[in-house]
């Protein structure tokens, strides 16, 4: 029982990091109809920035600066590379973001080198115990951070002028324009928000075993998450992210006991299996809706 609970908690912890990444994808998609495959590179860039800044600035200031810088970087990429492509088929823009991802990772890799860099997070691998259940500190930090970010995000979308403008644009771009909303501001803002959240996720991913040139792959966990949740739903991104984290963790904990014949690394594949099952039952994801046709 305690094993189950701590496995679940681990899953919710990593899952909330996936949720942050998935939210980035969904926010950009909703505003611009582009799937931004450069998210992994942005995540990596954020983490690497922290690893350089943590010495002089200390962890928390370093994270704040890196989040702001990554947000600016994402905004700059949108302005310079993606914006001129508006009007081109969505498929082509998606490919361009893959190009951005590869190029940016190449640059960032130069700053990683062959060593493993550390972000110096105050939450190590040490565990705390509640009622016999042990949880790593960093998993608690992940969950709390994600909760705070998600709360702020929802308040932003619900009450702020720009947040409302983003929702309006997501729903009907021409009508938003007719109300004087600057759609280019909305595009830029959505990239900036997604970039900032990717940086936060990067810090947590790196707080496990440090930064090497491979950690960007973790960002791809957001893909089954958004497909499980539905590409257009913020709630879906959160539920999808947590689901992926929990499934992975449970499979990692129990699969060797119950189904050893699946091989030793099945937990890595398991989110995709869940994704396939969800797609078979609900083709638009758990929270997705078939596009409403306006007449």
């Amino acid at each position, binding site marked *: 029982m305690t094993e189950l609970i701590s496995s679940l908690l681990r899953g919710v912890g990593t899952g909330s990091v996936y949720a942050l990444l998935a939210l980035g994808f969904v926010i950009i998609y909703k505003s611009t109809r582009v799937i931004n495959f450069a998210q992994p590179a942005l995540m990596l860039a954020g983490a690497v920035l922290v690893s350089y800044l943590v010495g002089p600035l200390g962890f928390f200031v370093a994270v704040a600066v890196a989040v702001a810088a990554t947000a600016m970087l994402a905004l700059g990429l949108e302005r310079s590379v993606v914006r001129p492509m508006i*009007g081109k088929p969505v498929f082509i823009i998606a490919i361009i973001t893959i190009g951005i991802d590869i190029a940016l990772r190449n640059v960032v890799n130069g700053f990683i080198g062959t060593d493993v860099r550390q972000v110096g997070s105050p939450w190590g691998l040490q565990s705390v115990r509640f009622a016999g259940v042990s949880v790593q500190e960093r998993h608690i930090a992940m969950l709390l951070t994600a909760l705070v970010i998600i709360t702020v995000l929802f308040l932003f979308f619900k009450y702020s*002028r720009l947040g*409302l*403008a983003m*929702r*309006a644009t997501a*729903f*009907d*771009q*021409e*009508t*938003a*324009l*007719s*109300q*004087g*909303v*600057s759609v280019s501001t909305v595009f830029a803002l959505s990239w900036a928000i997604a970039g900032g959240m990717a940086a936060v996720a990067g810090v947590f991913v790196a707080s496990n075993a440090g930064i090497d040139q491979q950690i960007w792959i973790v960002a791809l966990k957001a893909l089954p998450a958004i497909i499980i949740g539905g590409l257009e739903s913020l709630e879906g991104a959160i539920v999808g992210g947590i689901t992926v984290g929990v499934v992975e963790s449970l499979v990692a904990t129990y699969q060797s006991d119950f189904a050893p014949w699946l091989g030793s690394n099945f937990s890595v594949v398991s989110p995709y299996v869940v994704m396939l099952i969800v797609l078979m039952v609900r083709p638009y994801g758990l929270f997705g809706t078939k596009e*409403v046709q*306006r*007449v």
Partner: protein
Amino acid sequence: MLAVRNLEVVYNDVILVLRGVSLDVADGQIVALLGANGAGKTTLLRAITGLLDIHDGEITKGSVTLDGEPIHQHGPTKIVNLGIKQVLEGRRIFSELTVDENLRVGAHTNPRNARQNIDRIYDLFPSLRGRERATAGYLSGGEQQMLAMGRAMMSEPRYLLLDEPSLGLAPLLVQQIRDLIVEINKQGTTVLLVEQNATMALSIAEHGYVLETGKVVMDSPAEELLADSDIREFYLGLGAEGTTKSFRDVKHYKRRKRWLS
């Protein structure tokens, strides 16, 4: 004064839709713009409000001026800030947002007076009062039209461009919308009213234009248009009700087709 001069608009670089349109909207007036399906009424509004761009349309000749200053090179945000607001054809409310949120998006360029304007809108459209938190998509057609108009009024525009506000509404609601347009005008907003319901539009307008395949074919005071035999035949019909209805059916069909393609 809002003035359109010799305006030519082309879609997709090849489709010439407006062919030298001129039109004046003097401050304080209600001006009606009539015309059959595809005449170019909506295109003219888009040209004024900077919305051609996203339809891959372009002004190739002529000008739009506001108090003598050319404004046709401006984007939609600038145009709204200059006090010109368009209510798009088909209401286009944000149906997933609440009534209140719809109005607040309307206040995007004018957030300072939002609270006070929201109250003003609820006074003007009492049927929206009490529905502040309702999801806008669940409002009735008439209420949605009112919301669309109220949303536009949130920025306190000088000019309100209405694109077929009576479309698809029952006769009683058409009356109501008509009275509201008069009220909005009385409170100081100049109105350019695009309509296929010519009876309704001409009954409240000072002046009317008739657009036909991208050209202004008539430009007269409203009462002259009402008396004109061609207008009577083409737009007012014999038993007005019956014909306007079938007109709408045709239009409805056309619209579906255009959006599907």
